């Protein structure tokens, strides 16, 4: 059961507003975000329910849900929202709040994927698809999961064995260094 407390009923709404500039009180619960979401069947909370929970300040349910982590940020919801609410941006803000509150991310796979993805970027300045898939599937102890796709993608030139590097990898490394420094400062 959700207990609605009039004292800080607008707390979460205001925090989201200050982080993202998006006002969830505009939401009329039409559900178009959920209707078009490609990840919707996998989500424990539907996008329109996420917005509703912000409206009634249910922080606990929101920061512990898997939805905010499995949202692919494809922005279909944001583009089609009749109230022009950028829902993908709100998902970003919720992820930020969950990390700040040090709530363990329930979606291990997502964290693993993000780590491997960013690692690839740090090293090369761009992603190396083969490395990403292999490392990810090894980490999840399912080494042969996407193996059948490999030969087809390889023959069509979608998978490079060695991967590519961008010209100025140093600058990318600098970005990573700076962001780490900012985080420490915070």
């Amino acid at each position: 059961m959700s207990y609605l407390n009039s004292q800080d009923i607008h707390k979460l709404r205001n925090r989201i507003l200050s982080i993202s500039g998006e006002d969830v009180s505009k939401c009329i619960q039409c559900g178009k975000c959920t209707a078009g979401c490609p990840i919707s069947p996998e989500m424990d909370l539907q996008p329109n329910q996420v917005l509703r929970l912000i409206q009634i300040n249910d922080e606990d349910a929101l920061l512990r849900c898997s939805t905010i982590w499995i949202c692919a940020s494809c922005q279909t919801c944001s583009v089609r929202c009749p109230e022009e609410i950028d829902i993908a941006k709100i998902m970003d803000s919720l992820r930020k709040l969950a990390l700040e509150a040090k709530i363990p991310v329930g979606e291990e796979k997502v964290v693993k994927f993000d780590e491997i993805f960013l690692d690839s970027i740090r090293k090369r300045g761009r992603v190396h698809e083969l490395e990403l898939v292999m490392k990810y599937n090894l980490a999840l102890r399912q080494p042969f999961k996407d193996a059948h796709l490999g030969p087809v993608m390889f023959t069509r030139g979608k998978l490079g064995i060695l991967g590519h590097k961008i010209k100025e990898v140093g600058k990318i490394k600098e970005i990573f260094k700076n962001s780490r420094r900012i985080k420490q400062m915070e």
Partner: protein
Amino acid sequence: MTESSHDENIELMTYSEIVEVKGFVGNFDVTIRKKPRYVDLTKCTGCGLCTEKCPAKVPSEWNLGMGLRKAIYKPFGQAVPNVPVIDKEHCTFFTKGKCKVCQKLCPAGAVDYEQQEEVVTKKFGAIIVATGFTQFDPSVYGEYGAGKFKDVITGLHLERMLDTSGPTGGHVVRPSDQKEPKNIVFIQCVGSRDESKGHPYCSRICCMYTAKQAILLKDHFPETQSYIFYIDIRAGGKNYEEFVKRAQREYGAIYIRGRVSKIYETNGNLIVRGVDTLTGKQVEIEADLVVLATAIVPQPDAIELAKVLNIPYDQYGFYSEAHPKLQPVESVTKGIFLTGSCQFPKDIPDSVATTGAASVRTCEILSKDELILDPKIAFVNPDICSGCLNCVEVCPFNAIESTVVDGRTVAQVIPTLCHGCGNCASTCRTSAVNVSGFTDDQIYAQVASVFEILKKESLLELSE
């Protein structure tokens, strides 16, 4: 409509446009352009032979392009007066110089290709504006495929098909293959309640006409199943809620609380993907026909007409009433009244009610010898008016004109047009214009006494 055409106190001017409105309540000079219809109103008997024999066929506007009409035609069956008009752009005679079939066949000799436009100016005591609405073009919703998929239509298309004198004779068919649809999906609020499309208001009539169409479909074609995607069911009106309940209970319409995000085509059928927010799940429906409840929007030339009439309109182009609660059919300009959907989306009972109200309000003006006006209006002291006429420029109601007093040009207020807004008074450099009850002297006296009170109660410290 037919009754009004027979009334001796009513002069109908159809196929005419208002070009200019001058004057004020009780005294309007209206210039009207009567467009040539190329058929003599006094001679035509309305037999319809010309329409029958006309060789030129054009998509019918009345049937939203779903059927054809002739180049000499009446827009719809019950049109008043019962006299056709020639569509000059598509008439074979006007475009190619040959044909004249209608003229040759007309037993009354009413067809006259030489008819010219006529401009007349007449005096009127009051004006009622009832220019109606048009429907929102849903093709801006790429995700709904209106305009791309033939079987995605609007409520008005379905309404025409359900009409026994309509393009399909009351038979509902899919535009793509003329087959009878089984699964019909209705989508509410297409355009309406959509900030991103510029129409955040509710169109008010769609909930009810959709329920009606779902009932009619089941009634005429028992095989059909209707699915209605809605955000809220707005059935506020006498017996409205019961009507929607009947659509659900007796006619088996399935109402789904949620919006549709995408329509796509597979194997000639439409797949509608939406959400049922009550179960929190996405739903997909294979539809034979999709009906969009498109928003009610003002006529494309509504703002143009508002400028001619000098009446205010809102951000969407609907005409504004003088007061939303207490003067709902009066425009801000005295003597001009509003009714129907030119004001905001209205259903039939509301339109009839406001029309009655507006008619009675005009009778109120026309039945009296003298008008009672608000006394708080502007007046000019001609002795100190310098005749700069800045006040004429700033008046939003065109209520100030110039006149000559003792050989000098001075401003003069037309009391029936003035609303007492005070624009003129604050603009006047010599304080020659003032508003009764709010003269400069009175306002200064008020300010002075407020200062006195504040000083007395030590609420104000003046550094002297």
